[in-house]
């Protein structure tokens, strides 16, 4: 079990999982910094469950810099997970980006009313990941790109 994971990835498809992990690693995230959940139930269990196997939601709320959430999940849907995260005091400030395939685009827009922060189109590439990082201003997620290496936006 990782201590203080920086990124949580909630994805059911093993291929998408592999590709996303690789993109993040290429962009400079340590694999050990990523907490993976394979479905909605597992994700909520990790975040909110209190039977010793899980994390402390308050602690997670502090350490997680990003949650990547796949919309189509078995058992509990991505939207439900999103709602739970964004409605709990301890976790609602964590930036959440939806992972979408091009036929789910419609659903992404309806997520905005639940407080989602951004979205990424699958397949996730390291470039796409980096642009999310930039957009959400979470530069300290990746080891390879300390703040000083980023070019500030022209005013």
């Amino acid at each position: 079990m990782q201590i203080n994971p920086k990124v949580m990835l909630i994805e059911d498809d093993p291929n998408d999982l592999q590709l996303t992990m690789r993109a993040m690693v290429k962009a400079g995230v340590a694999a050990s910094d990523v907490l993976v959940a394979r479905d909605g139930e597992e994700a909520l269990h990790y975040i909110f469950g209190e039977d010793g196997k899980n994390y402390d939601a308050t602690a997670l709320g502090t350490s997680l810099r990003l949650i990547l959430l796949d919309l189509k999940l078995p058992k509990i849907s991505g939207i439900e997970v999103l709602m739970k995260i964004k409605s709990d005091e301890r976790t609602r400030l964590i930036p959440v980006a939806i992972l979408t395939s091009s036929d789910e685009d419609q659903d992404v827009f309806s997520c905005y009313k639940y407080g989602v922060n951004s979205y990424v189109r699958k397949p996730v590439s390291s470039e796409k990941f980096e642009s999310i990082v930039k957009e959400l201003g979470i530069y300290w997620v990746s080891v390879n790109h300390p703040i000083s290496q980023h070019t500030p936006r022209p005013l």
Partner: protein
Amino acid sequence: MKLYTKRGIRSITILGLMFLVVVLVLSIRSFIIIYNHYKWISHTNEVLAQIYKINILTAKFTRGVRGYALTGMPMLLLPYEEAVKNLPTEINQLKVLTLDNPNQQKHIEELDTLIKQFEDQELRIIAARKNAGIEGAKEQIVIGSSENLLNTEDQIFNDMVKEEQALLLQRETILTNNVKFMLIVFTSSGLIGMAHLLFSYRKILEEIALAAKNQELALNVQHIAIANKELEAFTYSVAHDLRAPLRHIDGFTRMLEEECRNALPDSVRELPRQICERVSYMGTMIDAMLTLSRIGQSEIDPHLSNLKTVLDAALEELKKEYKGRNIEWQIGEMPFVECDPRLVQIVFNNLLSNAIKYTNKKDPAVIAVDCLNLDKEPTIRIRDNGVGFNMKYADKLFGLFQRLHRQEDFEGTGIGLAIVQRIIQKHQGRIWCESEINKGTTFLFTLGPPK
């Protein structure tokens, strides 16, 4: 058989009805004639019977008197007395029976006079016998003109009988003729009626068969429509399911390309990139299929629309496609048409995009949009002076993923026209084209069935 047309049937039926009316009228007339003549014949027979009756009476008359003249027995006078008593009544009866016949009336008058004379004569004979005995009677008989009278009487009777018989013959002839006529009329009406029935029977059977065929056709059309819808739904779901694995192949191939680019020998270095490119193209094709089946399944919402507005919207969307190009636009009058403007805009988009694309080697490119044949069948025409195509392959043009030009020369997936055709189909219109290589291409389409 050309009788089976609407006009043919109407003519035959009217003819038949007219014939039947004529037949009806003639039949009634004939029946009346037959009835009357039948009665007249009865009457004539009655008259004849009456004449014979009178004849017998006058014979009795004579016989009685002669008997008495010979024997002097008053008993023998009885027939004479009876005849004398009855003759006036019977003669009167005859008169009444032949009131309508002036000839017969004349004869009867003659008869009357004659019989009176006769009676006088016989009275004298009777008186002579009474007074002068048998000799006296003989004398009276000899000098009397009984025989003449009798002969004349016979003559009159014959004349009267002849007259009545002539009338009888006449009336019998007319009766027979009318009966013959009625026979012909009934037979021919019967035959014509049967012919008409058979004719109608055949026609009705034909109509029933035709209706059954039509129903079958309609059912087939319905089946085909359902099959098409199912096919479109199937296409959609298949394309949809193919997306995810394609995405993974794309991702892994990029991964491969990134990791191995430098480690690969020259002979295979480009392969990962080529695979990526093909995968990407496949994704485009799948998206195209999804678009086509979505459009195919969508409900068309037709209402009166201003095609000018639709065309302008399409041109606005295409502005970035022809940015920097020298294109001469010739836009004509656009009518109001019953259609789904959302879908027609897609048609304009695709056709104009093609025009723009295939004129990219011409400067200036000329693209003209106008409307022909407004009153009967409004037809939109889009012409360009681009690279054109060989009309020999025109029927492939609208096929899915079919292209008549090389990918290197003109990019594209070959789905635009398939979408356009589907939309035109939904409007029950037609689309066709003409082209000449290097001269240009013209597309024409209608948005509804011909009026």
